[in-house]
């Protein structure tokens, strides 16, 4: 039951979470962060530090969030715009660097007026 990043992260990208993750499984996309479910070890260190509580656990899932859980997985298993192949499980976000792309779902989130 890995953790995942929901819509609250879009256009915030605080990144406090990546400081906490001991296995470096939180990757930076264009508009939000994504947790790689195949690399997440369920330690939960990321969840409390997000200032907009975007990180959710698979265990206490709100129906509205289920789509974001699946979307976190899709970021790694699908082929993102501008890429030829899925990102897969690269074994660490620090090695990979920021990925300048988002899933379709994240791309469709309206930009909030500031």
């Amino acid at each position, binding site marked *: 039951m890995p953790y995942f990043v929901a819509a609250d992260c879009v256009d915030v990208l*605080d990144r406090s979470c990546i400081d*906490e993750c001991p296995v470096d499984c939180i990757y930076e996309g264009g508009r939000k962060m994504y947790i790689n479910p195949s690399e997440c070890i369920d330690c939960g*260190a990321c969840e409390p530090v997000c200032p907009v509580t975007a990180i959710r656990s698979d265990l206490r899932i709100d129906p509205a969030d289920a789509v974001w859980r699946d979307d976190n997985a899709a970021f790694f298993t699908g082929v993102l715009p501008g890429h030829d192949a899925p990102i897969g499980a690269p074994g660490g976000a620090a090695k990979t660097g920021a990925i300048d792309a988002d899933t379709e779902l994240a791309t469709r989130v309206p930009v909030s007026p500031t």
Partner: protein
Amino acid sequence: MHDVDLVVVGAGPVGLYAAYYAGFRGLRTAVVDSLPEPGGQISALYPEKMIYDVAGFPGVRGRDLVAGLRDQAEMYAPTWLLGQSACQLERLADGRLRLTTTASEVTTRSIVIAGGIGTFSPRPLPAGTEYLGRGLDHFVTDPTQYAGHHVLVVGGGDSAVDWALTLEPLAASITLAHRRGRFTAHASSVARLRDSSTTVLTPYVVHELSGRDAVRRAVLRHTDSGDLHEVDCSRVVAALGFTADLGPLNGWGLRVVDRHIAVDSTMSTGVAGIYAAGDITDYLGKVRLISVGFGEAALAVNNAAAASDPDAALFPGHSTENAA
């Protein structure tokens, strides 16, 4: 060179309990951990958090649970081999095992791997790794070593803030640099930090460290504007958290799947003399909880003891009747 009956690899909560239990069974015990202090995931990831699901404790702070487990293990005075990583494991001609760490060699009859999520390594400070041990460190083991120095602390978590607060009365000056405006440390600690004489610089990262034999200066870079800012410092503490990795354990000939070691109901890895307990194990129905790990530690030690000594019973009796 140490010679013992049982080596516990990993001094987290499960490893500490395994060390107590091995001592209780009269086994000469050594405990190895790459971090300088015991506590494993609790100390590295959540020492201040309240834990509610440990048997016997309606609520216990992580660091207090670790302290209690350490006291319990200390009753039988195991050999502590902390601040060293387990590297190589070999079988000797007489069937015993030899474990080589970064600082020791230990021969033993049995091993209990309580490796958790792997060896914790401090996150490196990208701009300054060559100064490790020459003014740059990831831990403050002896605050007096910082007295009179100009100190730079890097990081925004509880470790960074706590160390800045600890060193502030001793140091000639303290600067804390964090790459974000928000701290993940406790709000009250951050408030005390801002009230202190510490110069808090956010959002800055360390661009470069310089100095001939040791650190003398740091150049910080503002993460938005790119502006550079120089800080004189002869001590740097990089408290950037930890990453975990199974590392050398992958090469020990064990059934490792997805960062876990497969065990049977005796907690044996299938390799003679090698057992595992805690989060690192995997078996049908495994649930990764501290309380589950405690049970596995007792199973592993009891089975290791029985397997290595034909005269030893699997069940050693109750602790209330015999302190061995």
